């Protein structure tokens, strides 16, 4: 009897979660699908944001996430390798790094945005300008590179934690087998452990990308632009971004009601992009699991 009520409770709870997701998806698809077209995906907004498309925002989002990935994956993966393979679990430094990672994950994203403005734009950027550009504001203003680095900081904990988990899932026996052949710790780590964990590491990278692709707050002050006709061509150019564009369309356009179809279309594009990234992550995870399962058979 108690079992039956528990089953019912979990079923209702699950139904609420799935139901909410379906309502959101249906609403977005119903209102957004009609505006999706080749022009919408490539053209710049026009006519007071009531016509045109989101081409520059898609380009900006792509450029931003690629740069962020290039920044976050090497640093995150190397940190995770150090934590999992080299640091003694009880060492002070390792505990300090772990604590820092956990705290970093809990910082609100708007705080990352302010930090990016204060640290990257105003400190590093202006320092660069003084040192190399004769004080002319070149890097000392919001731009693609600073937004990407700010996002990289935000997604760093995701990469570190997921990569460390992937490395820890590699059985100790496999490390021992390599060491017992007279391989060094370094050879064992990079030729056996990391290849074995590659599926998990890739998954973590993609999760970080999909998380970063949808974030708006960290790029508000560090590089995102309200409206740009030209695509960014330099690391210090400002850029448009899908997430920020949603915010702009919803609150800043001259006539919010008339931009609503554009708004839904933009949300749909953002959702589809994030969804596709997650699908890729899941596919990689399944394929890795299959490879590992066949190793045990």
């Amino acid at each position, binding site marked *: 009897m108690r079992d039956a009520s528990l089953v019912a409770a979990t079923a209702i709870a699950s139904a609420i979660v799935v139901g909410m997701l379906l309502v959101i998806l249906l609403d977005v698809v119903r209102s957004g699908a009609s505006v999706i077209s080749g022009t919408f995906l490539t053209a710049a907004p026009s006519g007071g944001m009531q016509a045109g498309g989101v081409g520059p925002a898609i380009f900006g989002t792509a450029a931003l996430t690629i740069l962020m990935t290039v920044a976050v994956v090497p640093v995150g993966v190397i940190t995770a390798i150090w934590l999992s393979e080299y640091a003694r679990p009880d060492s002070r430094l390792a505990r300090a790094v772990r604590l820092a990672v956990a705290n970093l994950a809990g910082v609100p994203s708007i705080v990352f945005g302010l930090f990016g403005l204060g640290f990257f734009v105003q400190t590093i950027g202006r320092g660069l300008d003084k040192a190399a550009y004769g004080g002319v504001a070149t890097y000392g203003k919001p731009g693609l590179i600073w937004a990407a680095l700010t996002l990289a900081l935000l997604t760093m904990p995701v990469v570190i934690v997921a990569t460390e988990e992937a490395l820890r899932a590699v059985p100790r026996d496999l490390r021992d087998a390599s060491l017992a052949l007279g391989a060094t710790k370094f050879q064992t780590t990079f030729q056996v452990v990391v290849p*074995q964990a590659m599926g998990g590491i890739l998954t973590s990278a993609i999760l970080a990308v999909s998380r970063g692709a949808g974030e708006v707050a960290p790029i508000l002050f560090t590089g995102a632009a309200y409206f740009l006709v030209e695509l960014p061509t330099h690391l210090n150019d400002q850029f448009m971004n899908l997430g920020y564009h949603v915010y702009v369309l919803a609150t800043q356009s001259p006539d919010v009601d008339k931009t609503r179809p554009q708004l839904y279309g933009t949300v749909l594009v953002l959702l589809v992009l994030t969804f596709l990234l997650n699908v890729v992550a899941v596919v990689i995870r399944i394929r890795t699991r299959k*490879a590992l399962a066949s190793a045990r058979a």
Partner: protein
Amino acid sequence: MATIEPSQRSPGGEPRAAVLTAAPSPKLEVRGLDVFYRGEKGGETHALQDVTVDVFPREVLALIGPSGCGKSTFLRVLNRMNDTIPGARVAGKVLLEGEDILAKDYDVVTLRRRVGMVFQRPQPFPKSIFDNVAYGLRAHGLADKREITRRVEQALGRAALWDEVKDRLDAAALGLSGGQAQRLCIARALAVEPEVLLLDEPTSAPDPIATAKLEELIAELKADLTIVIVTHSMQQAARVSQRTAFFYMGRLIEVGATKQMFTRPRETRTEDYITGRFG
């Protein structure tokens, strides 16, 4: 961890020559070996207590005893694989041709090239069959492709796997069956041409054909290798080994010629174990 005087290295300083005489000098000399593991709630477990035993060149020494008796721990000390266990502590001496391998400055990478190990569960690397066998050679800095190919083929041949994999050397090693994977691990260990081979229950998978093949292989390998094998099976110890050591609760109870151990052991505990009264 005392340093070793030159006089201790071997009689006359010619270890190789000594091997050929009627009374060979031991390949491995274990003297008063203690191993401690750190327990989960602090405190230490005394996993091995005061073990003293010799292993002679070109013999197969079988280690038997109930689970948790310390036989695998003993095996792992012989190529310092206990170094990878956090909190493990070793005291005593283990001499490989007279040199103390437990000395702090002893190079474990070199040691493991001389003393190879095959584990209970086969652990193929996420690489091709060829690259699995070539792994140790490359790790040791061998770059000559023809030499690598020659030694990989030779090792696969010695491990009785060549005929089964010669047409798919580039296939992933993860696709091999359990018995094949275990022979791949043996080929991998043989490719680096160790002097001593440590086998930790290599035939625990219930596959009679694989077991028979492996036992044949051990008989062939002992022509030029020293082999120490941990086994749960009395029959296997009797079939493959010349001498047998019986471990019980972290102590080496008795070591002697396999025939004598299985027919008239000196210790009643050995007899009880062999005849199946406990364990």
